[in-house]
């Protein structure tokens, strides 16, 4: 295959992914290099358009550079590669083969990322524009049909017809609760008090999840348009977008989008010549996980510590400053314009009966293709992890997948054919949550994972109610004891008892779901707990107090890989001779265990 692959020569657009993952990998330098080389370049009759886009989702391959209209995608691009891309692809119309994605199974080069297994199974609604537009440009959004849905409701639909359409679509809240969006709007509309408020919940706090961030950074106008449509329904005048302050780029692009929308008359008085008057304010969060809970978030906007309160009365009746309020998650808002524009039937034709449409997941952990994926509901975990995600890397064994954020649960290999939708996952003791999918392999200790999540929640419990505050603390204590090898068999029942009280008696969802990681690991991986307690060993080689690594002399080839990677020089042995671990020096980081290609490093 030495002959050159020819491609068409009329180049229009170069799109450099500047999502957080790609930026961390040097995308900004790539962008700057392009800018520098293209500026006043006499070789071009028409200088190509250069765009910095939001996240393409395939962070594993970043920085990604796409060239349109030929639809060529280059992966792992560095600033040094820019000259070659300009020289070969842009000027001569040839492909730079070494930067193309190579299918690991078929060993073929793939010209466009859209033809890869990672993208083929995806169906993009909420992420439809991301990676295709410059998030700083309102014109890019309009060019792809932006603000058309707003125009449609203002000109052709009554507020009741809009609610009817949303109800028909079956859209359920994407933040994790899964409450039907249409019902929420209807309840708020039926509350006869004004002013009414609209809030976008962008306080995404689940570790290992970045769906909402990607939407806020990559397509901020879709959120504004979704909120505007709701404003029309409720006759609301004021909206708030609450976003984590740690999300620098999201804050920047949302702020810009609000200014641009005002300038074009999409926000402000008499929008598009109608009676609708609506404006949006950006509120930056203070880094408290519990503020993702809607009543806590409302408190936070009001200028108080974000402590939730019980929902005898829903925010739709009594929300922000005691007024009727609709609060929806970022991804929910992103779906609204599409449902209005393309119709509820089309949306409902995707997904399952109880959970129509698509869902965005962030697929991370021990999986080959880390990144963001949007798939129809009802897809199985196996399809997501193996067909889209490419399975577990380095020939390791799959152990569990964790869904639903810190309050979700761990699902074992035997349950991989579960359909992913709101109801199925809840039935299995996990939950959909906001969409984090974390893959774990045989080097992940399930007891330690439970301890990690519980410890995370201990720091995030607001402390208002006792079952949550004291319950989580007790769980952490017991789990830490077990990880240190000081656990007793009676601890297992104690964990279950405490969990039950928390589920029954906590004030908000944080406390009620906090025991999920403990209960689900106890249910599916009790043997690991018992190994820690009875045999005083950690089968995954994670808990330092219970782990001793050794090298099996039968399997060691003396390749020196482990020795070179040991951070504390705790491995001795010469090349091509058997190696040995010096126990006193070893810090149990597991680097040798994970790296050894011959599985010669073992856990005792």
């Amino acid at each position, binding site marked *: 295959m030495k002959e050159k692959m020819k491609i068409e020569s009329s180049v229009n657009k170069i799109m450099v992914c500047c999502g957080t993952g790609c930026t961390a990998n040097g995308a900004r330098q790539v962008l700057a290099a392009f800018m520098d080389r293209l500026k006043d370049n006499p070789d071009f009759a028409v200088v190509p358009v250069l765009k910095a886009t939001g996240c393409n989702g395939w962070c594993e391959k970043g920085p990604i550079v796409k060239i349109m209209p030929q639809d060529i995608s280059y992966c792992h691009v560095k600033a040094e590669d820019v000259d070659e891309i300009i020289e070969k692809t842009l000027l001569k119309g040839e492909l730079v083969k070494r930067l193309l994605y190579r299918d690991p199974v078929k060993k073929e080069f793939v010209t466009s990322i859209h033809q890869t297994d990672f993208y083929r199974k995806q169906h993009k609604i909420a992420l439809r524009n991301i990676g295709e537009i410059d998030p700083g440009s309102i014109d890019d959004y309009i060019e792809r049909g932006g603000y058309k849905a707003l125009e449609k409701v203002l000109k052709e639909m009554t507020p009741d017809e809009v609610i009817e359409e949303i109800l028909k679509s079956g859209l359920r809240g994407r933040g994790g609760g899964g409450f039907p969006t249409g019902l929420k709007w209807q309840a708020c509309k039926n509350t006869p008090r004004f002013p009414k408020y609209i809030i976008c919940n962008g306080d995404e706090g689940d*570790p290992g999840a970045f769906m909402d961030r990607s939407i806020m950074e990559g397509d901020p106008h879709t959120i504004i348009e979704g909120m505007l449509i709701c404003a029309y329904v409720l006759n609301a005048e004021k909206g708030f977008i609450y976003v984590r302050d740690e999300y620098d780029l999201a804050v920047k692009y949302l702020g810009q989008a609000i200014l641009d929308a005002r300038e074009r008359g999409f926000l402000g008085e008499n929008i598009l010549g109608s009676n609708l008057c609506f404006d949006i304010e950006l509120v930056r969060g203070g880094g*408290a996980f519990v503020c993702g809970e809607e009543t806590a978030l409302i408190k936070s906007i009001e*200028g108080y510590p974000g402590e939730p309160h019980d929902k005898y009365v829903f925010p739709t009746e009594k929300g922000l400053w005691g007024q009727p309020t609709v609060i929806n998650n970022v991804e929910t808002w992103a779906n609204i314009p599409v449902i209005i524009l393309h119709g509820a039937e089309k949306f409902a034709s995707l997904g399952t009966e109880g959970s129509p449409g698509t869902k965005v997941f962030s697929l991370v*952990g021990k999986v080959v293709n880390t990144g963001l994926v949007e798939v129809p509901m009802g897809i199985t975990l196996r399809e997501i992890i193996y067909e889209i995600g490419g399975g577990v890397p380095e020939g390791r064994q799959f152990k569990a997948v964790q869904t639903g954020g810190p309050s979700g649960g761990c699902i074992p290999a035997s349950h991989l054919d579960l359909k992913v939708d709101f109801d199925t996952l809840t039935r299995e003791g996990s939950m959909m949550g906001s969409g984090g999918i974390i893959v774990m392999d045989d080097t992940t200790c399930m007891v330690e994972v439970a301890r990690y999540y519980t410890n995370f929640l201990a720091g995030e419990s607001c402390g208002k109610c006792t079952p949550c505050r004291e319950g989580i603390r007790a769980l952490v204590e017991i789990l830490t004891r077990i990880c240190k090898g000081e656990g007793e068999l009676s601890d297992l029942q104690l964990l279950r008892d405490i969990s039950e009280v928390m589920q029954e008696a906590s004030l908000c969802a944080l406390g009620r779901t906090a025991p999920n990681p403990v209960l689900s690991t106890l249910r599916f991986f009790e043997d690991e707990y018992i190994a820690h307690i009875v045999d005083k060993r950690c089968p995954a080689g994670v808990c330092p107090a219970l782990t001793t690594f050794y090298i099996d002399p039968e399997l060691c080839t003396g390749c020196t890989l482990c020795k070179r990677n040991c951070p504390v020089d705790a491995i001795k042995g010469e090349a091509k001779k058997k190696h040995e671990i010096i126990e006193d020096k070893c810090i149990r*980081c597991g680097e040798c265990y994970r790296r050894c290609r011959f599985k010669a490093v073992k856990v005792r």
Partner: protein
Amino acid sequence: MVKVADEAKMLADIREILDNYPPEERYILAVMQDMQKRFNYLPKAGLRMLAFYVGVPLSRVYAMASFYKAFSLTPKGQYVFRVCDGTACHIKGSETLIEQLYKCLGIRPGETTPDGRFSIETVNCLGACALAPVVVVNDRVYAKVMPGDVEKIIREYGGYAHEGKNED
């Protein structure tokens, strides 16, 4: 020792931040965020002035400052090591990185070295899970950090001669 000129400058800076917002309770969070960005912590004088400006007791402002994780009541180091401890980073070994940092710097997350040069923090998730485990020093991102890299990274910032006396 804070010099008089420094203190005057700080007060002027606080004033400037306050002037950007109307004196309403709902802007307490925003003002504190701006202060944290400007000073790297919330100075006592700033909280006092904020409480007075909005017309609430100091305790009310303090409740906010201690509730939200983004704020610090003591000055942070010149170089802040933020170790991501999101799930993806955690199962790829962020805990070991925190241990290594402790060995090199003698401090735990939330602490600052006595000379005021280094601080360590953990963050829940930076959303860069493909690069796990991730460490961010001020604005620079270090991807796929291995325990052995920790010392090298510290050396980039002038190194630190910790005697290792704090072993527990």
